[in-house]
């Protein structure tokens, strides 16, 4: 029976079944009639009929089984024979399985990451309608991504934006958690109570905040993250209603969020209500906003409406610069993964290319094998095996190989994911949730089937008619042109793919080098930094706070090994502590249509610039006596000098945040004493420096809209290895107040490294893909060339016997190999030129068509390919003509 007919029978099983049932039923009925005529009752007749017939079910099943069983049996047999054949050539089998495992494993692992991080980034219901309220300031060359809001904007959106269903505001703060166990700095998020209903989330235990808890003077309550609850409180089920001390304020735990809820980022430990009132709204940019679009409203509608509101606000708060804000809301999904999704897709594409290289490689091995067995196959077809039998013969092997490769690969992926999760950058959302789930398993299975067909089908595509095979398949002949053609095509393809990946990783490497070469304008060498926050219960006003910070600086200065010590409210490259506002210059009237610049403000202890190694370009820095003498001075960055003073000398000019004097009537002006070089605020290689202003911490007491100083980051320049001073620093802080805890302990170098970590991560992944592709490609070239030499052994023998120079024989082989390699490289260069703009967004300071990278990688590839060809060529040249002729 032909296999097609057999499959048809299986499909038809139901119909067969029905026909047979009908036939048997008739038979039983006829016996019953006969037995009733013999005088038996209906019941007796029925029993006698069944006895005479035997079991009707059994009979039916037996006939069907006969058909299905042989089919299954044959399939099993085919696979067993395939397994036995593969076991007989272990080198081929191991090479093929390992190659496939590597490629399938890499694809499964990266797919699992992409699936979790990009395809399912937000675990909130209907998350497509949740938007991040971001702005751009085109007049300051910031097109989008400015994600700070003021409470004035919040109330305007809340009350007047019809396209928004609900709005929530939040701010991340690190606070001291004390009571039960060691004091600890925890990351808390102050949120408006509207957040939970806006995101459509609910606590796993207990409740979320009520509106009454979101006003000043409301009850002190907190909702803990699942992580903090399990880590610090051992998942105590009786925690609800208990109080914990946050910054020394006793706070009641009212709820626990589920483990997957990690808004706004994975490091959040607890949420507390953000107390706000309409009356106390300010123009302090220190909050972040999220909103839910009204059903049916689009992001574009929201953008237009918010822009209208910004213009209205200009009327309510003249001169506050709201006009320059151009709303650029993005869906939260875009805002969360926008920066990383490109990188991940590219990594997935890279490992996809590696899989192609691997398939080409195994296909080549397979071709070689199938040619060696050409006679066996020929014999089979001569004996009447049809094409489908031959197809089964090859496909069974390829399916078996891919299955084993897939199983091993799945194991590799499991390990790789552990590594990715451990070393991945922290800004990949949901990275810790990445695991190999059913979807990843299905994906892997799909890959296995695809690869099996891809390389197993190849020998079939070019299976030759018998006559040609007989003519061609003689033992010692040189193989036909077409067969070498296929092999060389695969080899060239491998070279091309490997080159594309090499170029990509080369471009990434150069970008990384460029990024690392960016001068951050501070000296990261041997400096320890950490953050200390003062609980408001013990440090009720700015005077107490500032004195405590100065005392800590003094204690730290006495630590052996410390050279200089200072502190700032915010360091470069640190997120979450930036506060900004509109800056006004004394005596500089706003022209109509002119906007005050939005400036980040920092308060520092004396000697900060010296400790950080920041360069004063003009005037002087903030010294310790400026701090102690309460001097109202400021140091501004070069970019601010440019923006606010347009080339004029800013030294001696007076500036102020906000356009109103202090309630006391004092102007609250700061006099500019110096200009410092720009430092990066959020990332290395920022396209445009964000203006910053530094003031002494004492001065921060007497200006409007001062920066928050309750938590400061201390910087210790050390003469010994900085990490070794952690314990001494902790002891020094404890001498000031034993209840204080250190947070975010790291060296400045770590801070600097972290800012390039995402690029490093992407670069390493692409580089791994490129190296794997290169190795597979080289192994492929070597394999094909060796095979060609072994096939041409007798021909080479004849040539040598007829007096050919060994050198020219080697050159002949080398020429054959390098022609293919050069052709492959040419295709690769063209493909890389066309494709490299896809990774342009990942690059820094380098053109996606950088000639040096293209030339360098092409050269590297050709050298390696030449080596892979040279080894077999040398073997050919060293053949002894006698032996070569005897091989057949």
């Amino acid at each position, binding site marked *: 029976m032909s296999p097609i007919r057999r499959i048809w029978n299986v499909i038809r099983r139901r119909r067969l079944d029905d026909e047979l049932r009908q*036939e048997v039923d*008739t*038979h039983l009925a*006829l016996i019953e009639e006969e037995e009733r005529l013999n005088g038996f009752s209906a019941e007796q007749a029925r029993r006698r009929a069944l006895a*005479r*017939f035997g079991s009707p079910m059994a*009979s039916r099943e037996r006939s069907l089984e*006969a058909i299905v069983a042989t089919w299954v049996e044959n399939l099993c047999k085919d696979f067993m024979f395939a397994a036995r054949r593969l076991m007989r050539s272990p080198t081929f089998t191991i090479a093929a399985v390992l190659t496939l495992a590597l490629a399938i494993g890499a694809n499964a692992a990266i797919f699992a990451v992409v699936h979790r991080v990009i395809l399912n980034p937000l675990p909130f219901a209907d998350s497509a309608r949740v938007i991040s309220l971001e702005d751009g300031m085109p007049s300051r060359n910031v097109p989008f991504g400015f994600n700070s809001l003021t409470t004035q904007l919040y109330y305007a959106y809340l009350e007047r934006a019809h396209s928004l269903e609900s709005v929530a505001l939040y701010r991340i703060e690190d606070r001291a958690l004390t009571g039960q166990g060691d004091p600890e700095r925890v990351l808390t998020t102050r949120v408006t109570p509207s957040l939970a209903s806006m995101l459509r989330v609910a606590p796993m235990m207990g409740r979320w905040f009520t509106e009454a808890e979101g006003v000043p003077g409301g009850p002190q309550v907190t909702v803990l993250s699942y992580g903090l609850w399990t880590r610090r409180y051992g998942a105590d089920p009786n925690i609800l209603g208990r109080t914990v001390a946050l910054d020394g304020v006793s706070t009641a735990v009212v709820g626990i969020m589920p483990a997957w809820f990690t808004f706004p980022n994975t490091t959040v430990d607890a949420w507390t209500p953000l107390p706000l009132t309409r009356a106390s709204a300010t123009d302090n940019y220190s909050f972040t906003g999220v909103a839910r679009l009204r059903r049916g409203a689009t992001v574009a509608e929201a953008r237009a409406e918010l822009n209208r509101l910004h213009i209205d606000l200009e009327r309510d708060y003249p001169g506050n610069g709201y006009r320059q804000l151009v709303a650029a809301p993005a869906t939260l999904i875009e805002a969360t993964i926008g920066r990383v999704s490109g990188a991940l897709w590219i990594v997935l594409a890279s490992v996809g290319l590696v899989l192609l290289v691997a398939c080409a490689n195994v296909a080549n091995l397979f071709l070689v094998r199938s040619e060696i067995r050409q006679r066996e196959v020929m014999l089979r077809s001569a004996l009447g095996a049809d094409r489908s039998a031959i197809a089964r013969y090859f496909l069974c092997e390829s399916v078996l190989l891919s299955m084993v490769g897939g199983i091993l690969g799945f194991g590799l992926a499991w390990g790789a994911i552990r590594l990715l999760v451990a070393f991945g950058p922290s800004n990949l959302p949901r990275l810790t949730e990445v695991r190999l789930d059913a979807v990843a398993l299905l994906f892997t299975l799909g890959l296995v089937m695809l690869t099996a067909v891809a390389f197993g089908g190849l020998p079939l595509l070019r299976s030759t008619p018998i006559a040609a095979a007989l003519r061609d398949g003689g033992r010692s002949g040189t193989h036909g042109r077409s067969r070498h053609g296929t092999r060389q095509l695969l080899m060239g393809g491998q070279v091309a793919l490997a080159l594309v990946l090499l170029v990509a990783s080369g471009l990434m490497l150069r970008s990384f080098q460029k990024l690392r070469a960016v001068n951050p304008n501070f000296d990261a060498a041997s400096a320890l930094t950490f953050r200390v926050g003062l609980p408001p219960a013990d440090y009720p006003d700015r005077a107490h706070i500032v004195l405590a910070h100065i005392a800590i600086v003094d204690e730290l200065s006495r630590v052996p090994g410390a050279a200089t010590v200072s502190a700032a409210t915010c360091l470069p490259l640190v997120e979450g502590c930036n506060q900004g506002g509109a800056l006004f210059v004394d005596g500089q009237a706003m022209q109509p249509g002119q906007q005050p610049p939005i400036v980040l403000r920092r308060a520092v202890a004396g000697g900060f610039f010296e400790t950080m190694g920041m360069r004063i370009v003009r005037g002087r820095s903030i010294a310790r006596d400026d701090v102690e003498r309460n001097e109202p001075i400021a140091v501004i960055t070069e970019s601010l000098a440019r923006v606010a003073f347009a080339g004029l000398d800013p030294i001696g000019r007076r500036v102020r945040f906000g356009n109103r004097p202090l309630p006391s009537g004092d102007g609250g002006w700061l006099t500019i004493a110096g200009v410092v070089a720009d430092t990066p605020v959020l990332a290395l290689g920022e396209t445009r420096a964000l203006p910053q202003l530094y003031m002494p911490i004492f001065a921060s007491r007497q200006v409007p809209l001062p920066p928050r100083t309750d938590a400061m980051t201390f910087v210790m320049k050390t003469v010994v290895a900085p990490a070794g001073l952690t314990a001494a620093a902790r002891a020094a802080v404890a001498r000031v107040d034993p209840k204080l805890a250190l947070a975010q302990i790291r060296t400045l170098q770590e801070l600097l490294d972290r800012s390039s970590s995402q690029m490093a991560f992407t670069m390493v992944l692409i580089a791994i893909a490129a190296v794997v592709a290169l190795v597979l490609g080289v192994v492929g070239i070597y394999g094909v060339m060796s095979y060609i030499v072994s096939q041409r052994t007798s021909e080479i023998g004849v040539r040598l016997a007829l007096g050919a120079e060994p050198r020219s024989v080697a050159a002949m082989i080398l020429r054959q190999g390098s022609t293919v390699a050069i052709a492959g490289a040419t295709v690769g260069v063209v493909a890389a030129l066309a494709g490299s703009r896809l990774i342009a967004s990942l690059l820094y300071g380098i053109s996606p068509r950088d000639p040096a990278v293209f030339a360098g990688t092409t050269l590297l590839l050709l050298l390696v390919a030449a080596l892979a060809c040279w080894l077999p060529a040398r073997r050919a040249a060293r053949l002894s003509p006698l032996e070569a002729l005897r091989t057949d």
Partner: protein
Amino acid sequence: MPKHSNDRLQGTLDLLILKLLDRSGPLHGYGLAQRIHQATADSLRIEEGSLYPALQRMTHEKWLKAQWGTTDTGRKARFYTVTAAGRKQLEEEERRWVTLTEAVNRALRFA
């Protein structure tokens, strides 16, 4: 090459079915069972259900042709007829049977 030719028991059933169908014309399974009982004077009692795997197999070998029809009492049943290939198979089986029984008889007589 005809299959099952070495399997005597199965071969016997095949032989009986072919012979009876060839002599009587189209029969359904029940009718065939009746004929076997009559022809062997009830001395060969077979489970009537075991006819069906044999009928299926022989139809598959193209020795028999099956066609749906109606019985005297108006029931739907499949009627089997012997094909040309079946007739050739019958001759073959008969020849073998004679050879075999002669050989066995001879052996029994002279043992």
